[in-house]
């Protein structure tokens, strides 16, 4: 902050506001320049509002727009706003970022779809799916770290839960038993983490790593020795999509394919998001959790049981991670394959940090990641239009997340006592 003020003092002409204006002007010009290339007047782009999955849904006409006018108008708009900001300055500038990034995104999409079509709803629906396991992992992280226990074992908990859910569901023939078994395994591994890091005050990173290695090894071993041998234990088990349960929901245009052609676990994640956000900031439990995470000594003085609060939070976090694990199997693919979480637990941790240790922030960063991931798949399919090698497109989610969050979030502040074991005096 001090540095910014200094710059402001040093030079009136290059104040932060002017720099911001210059930046948006450049963005506007970039839209005008890049997204008018390789296209011609009158070329159309089609953005589909229907997915094949929801053929039963009421069909909407696709959005068909002319490419050049759209990109020209949006580019000019952003340029004008940027120039205005440079010359006169707006009172608040937060909304500028929203306008500029949406204009950039829309122009890019329209430009990428020039002369062809792609399913807009498909991208959005896939974003939500891709964001779900990351969101659940991040929520698990929020629960643990808000009470000052670092949990890098989310990956391992997810993996263990994913395998257990398939095993139990196939053994018992009940999806719900598989589901609860996943939660139980998450809780069990979390309890282990809690005992090691809270009771024995072991380094929390080491304890988490131990669990990750344990889960990786055990699931790979059991997968190979048990599930490969008795293939009936790895039959496909998935929750029916909501639209399969109640077709009326699936028939709603846009919302149907977007929200109801989804696994119930997607909904559970969204509900959990709201519950945890409200609980963390508006309930007694939430206040205590945050107190324990920020200043355990003070919390203890006020009569809060620090150790018990941490135990409860870590185990709850483990159950949420277990739900994330169940997403991979019961909510998505339906079978277990070794190492199928593929590092989502770690991406979730990053999402939690970018989200500034809040549920809503974590949701935003997982959505950005999911959207960028879904977008890069579409761009690869449209490879004729977008001349970028697939290797680079595969990096897109990571790059976009970093840029978007570094630009918007800036400095994040972890809970003050994060990672420190508590010793009663």
């Amino acid at each position, binding site marked *: 902050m001090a540095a910014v003020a200094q710059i402001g003092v040093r030079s009136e002409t290059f104040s932060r506001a002017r720099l911001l204006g210059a930046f948006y002007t450049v963005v506007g010009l970039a839209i005008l320049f890049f997204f008018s290339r390789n296209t011609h007047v009158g070329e159309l782009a089609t953005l589909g509002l229907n997915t094949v999955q929801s053929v039963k849904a009421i069909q909407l006409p696709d959005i068909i727009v002319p490419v050049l006018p759209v990109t020209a108008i949006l580019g000019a708009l952003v340029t004008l706003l940027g120039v205005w900001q440079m010359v006169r300055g707006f009172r608040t500038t937060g909304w500028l970022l929203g306008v500029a990034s949406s204009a950039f995104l829309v122009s890019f999409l329209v430009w990428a779809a020039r002369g062809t079509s792609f399913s807009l709803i498909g991208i959005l629906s896939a974003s939500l799916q891709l964001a779900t396991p990351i969101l659940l992992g991040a929520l698990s992280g929020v629960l643990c770290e808000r009470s000052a226990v670092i949990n890098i074992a989310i990956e391992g908990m997810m993996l263990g839960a994913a395998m257990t859910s398939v095993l139990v569901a196939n053994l018992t023939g009940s999806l719900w038993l598989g589901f609860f078994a996943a939660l139980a395994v998450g809780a069990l591994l979390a309890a282990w983490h809690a005992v090691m890091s809270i009771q024995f005050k072991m380094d929390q990173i080491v304890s988490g*790593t131990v669990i990750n*290695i344990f889960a990786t090894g055990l699931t790979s071993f059991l997968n190979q020795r048990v599930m490969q041998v008795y293939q009936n234990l790895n039959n496909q088990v998935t929750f029916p999509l909501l639209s399969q349960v109640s077709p009326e929901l699936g028939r709603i245009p846009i919302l149907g394919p977007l929200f109801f052609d989804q696994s119930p676990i997607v909904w559970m994640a969204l509900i959990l998001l709201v519950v945890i956000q409200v609980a963390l900031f508006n309930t007694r439990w939430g206040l205590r959790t945050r107190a324990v995470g920020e200043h355990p000594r003070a919390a203890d003085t006020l009569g809060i049981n620090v150790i018990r609060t941490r135990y409860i939070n870590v185990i709850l976090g483990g159950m949420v991670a277990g739900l994330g694990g169940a997403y991979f199997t019961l909510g998505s*693919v339906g079978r277990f394959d070794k190492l199928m979480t593929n590092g989502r637990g*770690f991406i979730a941790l990053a999402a939690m940090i970018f989200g500034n240790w809040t549920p809503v922030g974590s949701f935003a960063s997982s959505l950005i990641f999911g959207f960028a991931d879904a977008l890069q*798949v579409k761009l690869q399919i449209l490879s004729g239009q977008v001349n970028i090698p697939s290797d680079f497109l595969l990096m897109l989610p990571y790059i976009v997340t970093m840029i978007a969050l570094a630009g918007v979030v800036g400095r994040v502040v972890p809970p003050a006592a994060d990672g420190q074991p508590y010793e009663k005096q």
Partner: protein
Amino acid sequence: MRRRIFVLIALLALAVIALAACAPAPTPAHTPAPPTAAPAQPPSAPAPTTAPAPTSAPAPTTAPAPTTAPTAAPTTAAAATTSGYKVALVTDIGGIDDKSFNATAWKGVQDAMTKLGVQGKYLQSRQQTDYEKNILEFVQEGYPMIVTVGFLLGPATAKEALANPNVKFAIVDYSYPDCYPGAVVGKDCGSNNPIPNVRGLVFQTDQAAFLGGYLAAGMSKTGKVGTFGGLQLPTVTIYMTGFQSGVQYYNSKHNTNVQVLGWDSKTNKGLFTGTFTDPDKGKTAAQSLIDEGADVVLPVAGLTGNGAFTAAQQANVYAEGVDTDQCVSVPSACPVLLTSVEKNMDVAVFNSIQSAINGTFQGGTNYVGTLSNGGVGLAPFHNMDSKIPATLKTELDQVKADIISGKIPTGFATLK
């Protein structure tokens, strides 16, 4: 400050996990591992000064040193009876249980274990740095024959094969010489010449995928079919290219305009998930293709591809399997599988092992699996048999005959 340290530790921990993952997996056929230099070094032999570096010495090559121990020939293992013959296999990253690529190659070794009584053992590569390490491990254990699985193992296999001329190698999906003009031997490619102790097993998969594409085009109602790959490797794109050529051939025959999404062999661009081990990603990739209208999906991505079958099931469209008959290896996918584009690596691996035992091992040459020698082909239609029109089946037979006779080009360069 403290936070920084934690982040550092977290990164370290990540590395630890990655490293832990590449620890050799437990293997079903456990052979008592001989001490590294044992086969070459009889206990009575006066130890030559160069010998006692057991861990680093590539056993077979240093063996013949002591003239006082003529009985301990380095080739004793190879000359032993069939039942004692040991065969090792090094997988690519997908691992032995990917139900397609590596699993099929391993089945070749398993067949040799049951039919020829050889002792088989494998090591799984978790990352690319494991390739050479795993091969070396088996060389040091004195295995007379090592099968390496996958295009990416090419350079590592060449290096070890050249260093250990007494060990027989068979490599799936690769052949030598592999150097292109300007390539640096040992860095960009393995060898400028055929390697006398290596048999390359390559597959003209585009021929089978051509049939798969033709079938897909014939079954598509939306006029769009889709495909995606794991990584953009020639052994992956050969499927996609053949598939596209098959669709185009169908179009020219039937005057239709079935489009292929996810791959274009003209621009060499398409849809890749970047991994062979992520079914959830495969599911989203397939969904994305389906959203664009594809109603037949061909995933060429190992375990990642298995997720595509779930997507196909949910959207009620067709899919095709790869490498092996996936209706058998992934039974739950059977209801959506039109067929599988088979690449019979198991047969090729088995034959190489058999020839190595018989003494007819053709090192320095390559086996090319084609439609005509049965090295590649389409799997049975299983449940779909009744849904595929008889005329389409007859056409497929005709197309197959025409590919074999060379009448139809399948779009990919001929392998040698």
